[in-house]
């Protein structure tokens, strides 16, 4: 930390809104995304998907399809060497026992959701591949399905999986809840519902695979997890060192590219045909078949004293996992840990379940289970405040977590919680109230806070590695396995290395996301990359600096402590002592390495028993407060967000412009969740498989979000940074719902908040 403080005083590059190298390429359209790739002799691969949400496959006949023009291969489950795919915690090597989830690469005899992959085709053209896929004859026997998690858990419900429909169940019990409710002056109950939504990145799932020299199956694709090379190896039954994944700069991820997408199919098709194969999913296919965010039912019962102090809370959660487990058990764990919000609650019980249904599978998406519960706990806070005649700001200030307080799972918060400051900043930034434009238009304001973990669960023993080294001309190279989803992940690493090693940012070049050539950095998920890989680069850079300054001290015959690296040179108090190039030549002569591999291990811990509240689950949390001003048309039910402010304590903003971008973009995704987005299903059939029916916010649907960046310096990341990738998506839905109640007196309990739902609440329908 002392070093951090020293560096902080003279920061030249960290903390500045530098222009990102990837942005320069992107405005020039020079970035080769996964789909912007072609190879000689390349085939085109497509996936045949099941039309039924629940069915048995009686037989599959590929004879006619295989004989069609241009077709190189048609593959079904029997052609897959190892047809079982385990969704372990992606990228981790630590076994997590019951959290392992199984799915088939291609369906064997049972279909559990619409869009489940059944066969693969590779052909000379994409059109030929699609025609051949249509010619595959699959004899299905439609089976009864179950499409609601409540129904799925009733006795006699159709079993989605043989082991039963209850996939995971977490419980937390802290304090005496019964006694807590007994001393409460007010008890408020609420039931809430959230919907299926899609990550809806603009770049669909895509990639190209080929067999490289040495027989290495090489897959270049858009993924948040290059470590899936291990899954490809397992499916093909080849050694892991014979599969290489090259991750491209992504056209968005948001969790939707955390599970496997095209890599396993591409690996199979390239391995089978021995030719390069390209696969790009259509938007319709992406919306149909990709895992969604879990819809939740949430039941909250909250008891508080007259002062606003919450004394007891009882919470039940039920999520819909769809046809397969994917990461559902973990998503539910995040919900369980954060279910009471960023507040002190002395007595709390959480009972959280997630069930299989024949709906589309659900898995990771930005916020990862810590999102749905915000709509529950922040709606409750306003209802309690209303019942007690307190302001929404006051009740949050009264209950805000502080350093040293414990979450319901028993984890003690060890860092500063800036919640009161965030609340004040967000609320005051709304400025003067907007006068209603017509008598039937009501204007109101709402606030919502959240906490979001950054970094992995401590018992997964998370780590990241990075290599930092100088070339002989003094240019600097950073190698890191980090996938860059567009948040500036790679660019931040360059800033950190340049800062520590005293070179201008333009002298740094970064190579990322290659499972064969870059040190593994783990997944770009869980708001963990700046924290984990930022620390790995910081560690590598500091070690490198120390070894170079040691060499410089020998060359100059001075004490290394008197030397500093800056402006492409070694500096003493008297000024420039040795140019960087001369130092590097000296290192070569003396046999001193000019590079260092840094490995950062996150603080680890043992698995906790949540139920008894025995301790630490996540390394740390990022806190936020968002405020909304909305206008409600009481004749039509239309809601318009007039102003929106979003405050987060990011610890330290490595690139303030990127941080603002994360906050603005995350909040707008949250506003889409609040007002527009919903995957609509009818008995497991997806009715929203186009951007014309699945609505994400456009420029005129949302106001400019005002980002408010608070820097406490209290994070566990480099220079005190906290993760900010996921946190901003959490609060908007509750902030908007609270503002609607402020405007109209009507309490929204179901998302998305459509004009029809408001009209019903206002008695117009």
């Amino acid at each position, binding site marked *: 930390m002392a070093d951090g403080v020293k560096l902080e005083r003279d920061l030249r590059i960290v903390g500045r*809104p530098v222009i990102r190298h990837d942005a320069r390429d992107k405005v020039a359209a020079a970035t080769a995304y996964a789909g912007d790739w072609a190879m000689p002799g390349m085939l085109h691969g497509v996936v045949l998907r099941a039309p039924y949400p629940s069915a048995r496959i009686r037989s599959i006949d590929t004879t006619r399809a295989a004989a069609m023009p241009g077709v190189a291969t048609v593959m079904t489950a029997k052609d897959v060497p190892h047809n079982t795919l385990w969704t372990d915690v992606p990228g981790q090597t630590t076994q997590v026992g019951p959290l392992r989830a199984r799915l088939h690469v291609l369906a064997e005899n049972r279909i559990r959701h619409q869009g489940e992959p059944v066969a693969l085709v590779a052909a000379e053209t994409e059109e030929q591949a699609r025609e051949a896929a249509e010619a595959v004859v699959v004899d299905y026997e439609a089976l009864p399905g179950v499409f609601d998690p409540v129904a799925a858990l009733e006795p006699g419900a159709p079993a989605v999986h043989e082991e039963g429909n209850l996939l995971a169940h977490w419980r937390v019990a802290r304090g005496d809840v019964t006694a807590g409710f007994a001393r409460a002056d007010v008890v408020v109950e609420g039931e809430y519902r959230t919907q299926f939504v899609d990550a809806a990145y603009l770049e669909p799932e895509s990639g190209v695979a080929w067999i490289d020299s040495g027989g290495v199956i090489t897959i270049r694709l858009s993924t948040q997890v290059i470590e899936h090379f291990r899954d490809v190896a397992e499916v093909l039954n080849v050694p892991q060192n014979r599969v290489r994944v090259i991750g491209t700069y992504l056209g968005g991820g948001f969790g939707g590219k955390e599970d496997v997408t095209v890599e396993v199919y591409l690996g199979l098709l390239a391995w089978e045909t021995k030719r390069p194969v390209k696969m790009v999913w259509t938007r319709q296919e992406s919306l149909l078949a990709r895992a969604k965010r879990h819809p939740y039912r949430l039941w909250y019962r909250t008891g508080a004293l007259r002062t606003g102090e919450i004394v007891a809370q009882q919470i039940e959660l039920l999520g819909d996992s769809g046809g397969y487990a994917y990461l559902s058990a973990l998503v539910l764990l995040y919900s369980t840990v954060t279910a009471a919000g960023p507040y002190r609650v002395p007595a709390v019980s959480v009972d959280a379940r997630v069930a299989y249904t024949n709906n589309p599978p659900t898995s990771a998406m930005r916020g990862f289970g810590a999102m749905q519960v915000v709509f529950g706990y922040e709606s409750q806070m306003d209802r309690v405040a209303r019942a007690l005649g307190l302001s929404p700001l006051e009740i949050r200030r009264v209950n805000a977590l502080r350093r040293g307080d414990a979450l319901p799972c028993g984890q003690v918060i060890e860092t500063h919680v800036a919640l009161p400051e965030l609340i004040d900043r967000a609320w005051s930034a709304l400025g003067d109230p907007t006068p209603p434009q017509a008598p039937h238009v009501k204007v109101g304001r709402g606030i919502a806070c959240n906490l979001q973990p950054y970094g992995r669960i401590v018992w997964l023993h998370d780590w990241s590695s990075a290599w930092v080294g100088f070339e002989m001309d003094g240019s600097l190279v950073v190698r890191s396995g980090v996938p860059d989803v567009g*948040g500036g992940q790679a660019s931040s690493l360059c800033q950190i290395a340049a800062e520590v090693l005293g070179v201008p940012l333009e002298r740094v070049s970064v190579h990322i996301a290659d499972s064969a050539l870059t040190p593994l950095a783990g997944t770009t998920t869980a708001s963990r990359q700046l924290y984990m890989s930022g620390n790995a680069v910081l560690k590598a850079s500091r070690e490198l600096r120390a070894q170079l300054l040691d060499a410089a001290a020998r060359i100059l015959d001075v004490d290394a402590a008197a030397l500093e690296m800056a402006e492409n040179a070694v500096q003493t108090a008297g000024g420039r002592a040795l140019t960087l190039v001369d130092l590097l030549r000296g290192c070569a002569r003396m046999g001193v390495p000019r590079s260092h591999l840094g490995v950062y291990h996150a603080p680890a811990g043992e698995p906790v028993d949540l139920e008894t509240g025995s301790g630490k689950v996540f390394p740390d949390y990022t806190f936020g407060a968002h405020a909304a001003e909305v206008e409600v048309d009481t004749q039509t039910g239309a809601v318009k967000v007039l102003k929106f402010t979003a405050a987060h304590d990011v610890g330290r903003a490595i690139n303030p412009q*990127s941080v603002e971008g994360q906050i603005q973009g995350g909040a707008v*995704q949250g506003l889409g969740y609040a007002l527009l987005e919903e995957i609509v299903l009818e008995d497991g059939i997806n009715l929203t498989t186009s951007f014309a029916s699945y609505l994400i916010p456009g420029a005129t649907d949302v106001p400019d979000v005002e980002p408010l960046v608070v820097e406490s310096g209290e994070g566990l990341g480099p220079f005190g940074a906290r993760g900010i990738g996921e946190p901003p998506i959490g609060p908007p839905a509750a902030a908007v719902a609270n503002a609607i109640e402020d405007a109209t007196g009507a309490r929204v309990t179901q998302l998305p908040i459509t004009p029809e739902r408001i009209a019903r609440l206002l008695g117009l329908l």
Partner: protein
Amino acid sequence: MRVSLTINGRTRDVEVQPSQTLLDVLRDTLGIFDVKEGCGEGVCGACTVLLDGRPVSSCLVLAPTAARRAITTVRGLERDGELHPLQQAFLRHGAVQCGFCTPGMLLTGLAFLERHPGADREALRHALEGNLCRCTGYAKILDALEAYARESRDG
């Protein structure tokens, strides 16, 4: 059929199917990957190109109808290897995250400002209605467009 396509000032004769979209010909036949495909149905705007200066979704344009018209992609904005001032404004204002919508945003914004140089932020917001962005929340894209408009007006 053979058609003659003029892309960023350079004319090329290309063999196309009458039913092929301009997007498919640009990407799959000609390898012009600065045009992106986001939805294939004219909603997201990622495949925007300028046809005689007007923004169109190239996934909705049949390739033969683009013959003998000026097709502009983002690569056509650079002059002598220098980024266009609007591209520079996108950089300065942090208007780029994943970058997949960026080519369409640049072309739509530029075409609009050429016809409406005095456009204010609200007018620009409406101009972007047909271009979806999932990363930025639009504010920094609007900042960049506004700054560029101001600079252009001030000469």
